[in-house]
């Protein structure tokens, strides 16, 4: 704060870092840096998507059989839940941009957290537990022992389930991290860190949250709907 006082004539808004020309440049630097990170995330998930595409092209019948073991209802509901959470996240940032009070921002952030937790709750409590009960988790007790009709495709059904658990698992891990970030944001908002001039942490955390949403937008059709359901 003493640095700010030294400037005297022109007061800077709180949150302004002195290496930047103005708030717009500071915000662009933050956004650009976050996108550089998200590009590495695109390639991180992209590696899994590439492996998925290759093995799907080699073993399509096994992948279709595996896909039909998943419950579309859970995937579709979770997609809707995540889209709702993206809307509430966008509205949290908007309420900071328009100078709404702390209460409004925290309201939208908490709502986003509740929706994110709903997603994870559905995944853990209903979907994955059901997968365990039905022995379609890869491993020693994988269900192909009980499904002779899968025949030669059985190893590739198991391979599909590996992709399913690794991809949705990595996605769920990102959701857990996102919930932690949102909790920090609630604390920062409560401590009056943000204003209509400075809300970069909200903005770039929003980018992360929406990115995780986009990953799920692709996982849903690729895992739950491949080969059709007719």
């Amino acid at each position: 704060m003493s640095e700010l006082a030294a400037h005297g004539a022109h007061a800077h808004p709180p949150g302004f870092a002195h290496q930047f020309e103005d708030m717009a440049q500071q915000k662009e630097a933050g956004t650009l840096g976050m996108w550089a990170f998200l590009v590495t995330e695109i390639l991180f998930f992209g590696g899994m998507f590439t492996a998925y595409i290759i093995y799907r092209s080699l073993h399509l019948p096994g992948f279709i059989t595996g896909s039909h073991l998943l419950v579309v209802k859970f995937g579709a509901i979770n997609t809707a839940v995540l889209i709702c959470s993206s809307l509430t996240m966008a509205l949290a940032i908007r309420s900071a941009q328009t100078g709404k009070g702390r209460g409004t921002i925290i309201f939208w952030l908490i709502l986003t957290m509740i929706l994110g937790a709903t997603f994870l709750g559905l995944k853990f409590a209903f979907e994955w537990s059901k997968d365990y009960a039905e022995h379609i988790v890869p491993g020693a007790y994988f269900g192909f022992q009980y499904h002779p009709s899968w025949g030669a495709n059985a190893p590739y059904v198991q391979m599909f389930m590996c992709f399913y658990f690794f991809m949705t698992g990595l996605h769920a891990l990102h959701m857990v991290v996102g919930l932690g970030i949102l909790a920090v944001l609630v604390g920062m908002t409560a401590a009056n860190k943000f204003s209509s001039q400075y809300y970069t942490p909200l903005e770039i955390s929003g980018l992360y949250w929406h990115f995780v949403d986009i990953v799920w937008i692709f996982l849903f059709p690729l895992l739950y709907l491949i080969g059709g359901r007719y």
Partner: protein
Amino acid sequence: MSDHGEHGPGHIVPVGVYVLVFLALMAGTALTTWIAYINLGPWNTPVALTIAVCKMLLVVLFFMHVKYATGLTRVVIICGFFWLGIMITLSLSDELTRHWELNPAPWNVILPFIHHLF
């Protein structure tokens, strides 16, 4: 882009636009689920992926504010997807142009010699 007025450094998207994007995303989810139950032959996956790409563009442009971002940020984002394209295309160009045969694994070739030794 950004204005330097009292509104702060970022573009403020009207609530109506957010709600419209949200409704479009929900409609896309319903559409892709519904279409999965219709037999389109080889077209089920391309249609599902097209819907997913449209949903992604809506999220990226409006929720992630890329429609209002600077050219520099946009170039970085496009580079990211371009690199993803390189990874998928070059990997597939190798995988799909190989002549797949059931060759004996190296281990199966070596195994008789090992048995011979002992």
